[in-house]
């Protein structure tokens, strides 16, 4: 378990964006692994099995949570239309945005930025960049249209880039595209 716990926890934490929920789901993953111990012991792909189960359980958890709070989420989204939730896409990012930041600081900044993304942007973004799923696969997994996946991922990238620009060296702060 110790060999895989960081990988499982990283998967659940990045998808869920919440430490407590990530721990609960990571625990469920290892309990499932225990139930299927005989099956995965001989398969030779323990890591892949654990990652798949971690992803599936996290997505199931998010679906349940979304159903439970759908009404209020909709209310919130309609009330927050002018916030960072739907960022302006007219935004150019300098290539050097990450250059001036120390690695450790950069990692912390990106992790925090990921957590600050709204769920409908964070989840497809994580599935694309960390789980390396295609747009089509993400659309199928999340039961949304391909266009929505592409838009959400693009908006997520823009939001992430904005946060990185704000956290980056001071000379990059003003490098947004002028109309």
């Amino acid at each position, binding site marked *: *378990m110790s060999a895989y716990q960081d990988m499982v926890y990283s998967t659940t934490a990045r998808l869920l964006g919440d430490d407590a929920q990530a721990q609960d789901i990571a*625990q469920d993953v290892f309990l499932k692994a225990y139930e299927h111990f005989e099956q995965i012991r001989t398969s030779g792909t323990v890591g892949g099995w654990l990652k798949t189960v971690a992803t599936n359980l996290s997505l199931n958890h998010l679906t349940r949570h979304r159903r439970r*709070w759908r009404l209020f989420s909709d209310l919130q989204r309609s009330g927050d239309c002018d916030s960072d939730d739907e960022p302006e896409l007219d935004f*150019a*990012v300098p290539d050097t945005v*990450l250059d001036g930041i120390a*690695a450790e600081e950069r*990692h912390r900044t*990106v992790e925090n930025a990921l957590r600050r993304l709204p769920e409908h942007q964070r989840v497809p973004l994580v599935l694309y960049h960390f789980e390396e799923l295609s747009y089509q696969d993400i659309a199928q997994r999340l039961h949304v249209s391909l266009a929505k996946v592409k838009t959400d991922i693009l908006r997520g990238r823009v939001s992430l880039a904005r946060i990185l620009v704000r956290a980056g060296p001071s000379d990059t702060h003003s490098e947004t595209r002028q109309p």
Partner: protein
Amino acid sequence: MTLSPEEQARLERLVGTACRELPLLEAPRSLAARVAAQLQRRAAQPTWRAPFSQWSTGLRVAFVAVALVVMGATLSMSAGPGAHLITRLLAPLSRVLARLESTGALIGLLATLCRNLGISLLQDIPAFWLYGCAAGLLALYALLAGISATAYRTLYGTR
């Protein structure tokens, strides 16, 4: 969408690089202990409380066999000479059903009385009051929804 395809590709590269170079998050030290504790708790539970799929093969086969025997015996008794025995066994149940029937009749009488009373009351109450009450209820419902939405946005929306 005003970003050009080149800019979108550049953004994808940038975010992809930033994500790829992230190290794994360190799992909390308590995670292994929590899993171990949960496994111990499960092990301490009796077998029948575990999901059927986790029962041992022998136990599952025995359970299915016993269930089939019970089903077969019940069917044969109801069709054959055991039918009289079943009738005797079910006699208390039929008595309970008869009592429930008489209770149902009483409840029906009470419901009729309440309905008649309600109709006569509704005829006496001015329509203005009825509409006022309905509007009040709707306002209270909207208030409750507003409070719930505010609570959600405060407690969960900022996560």
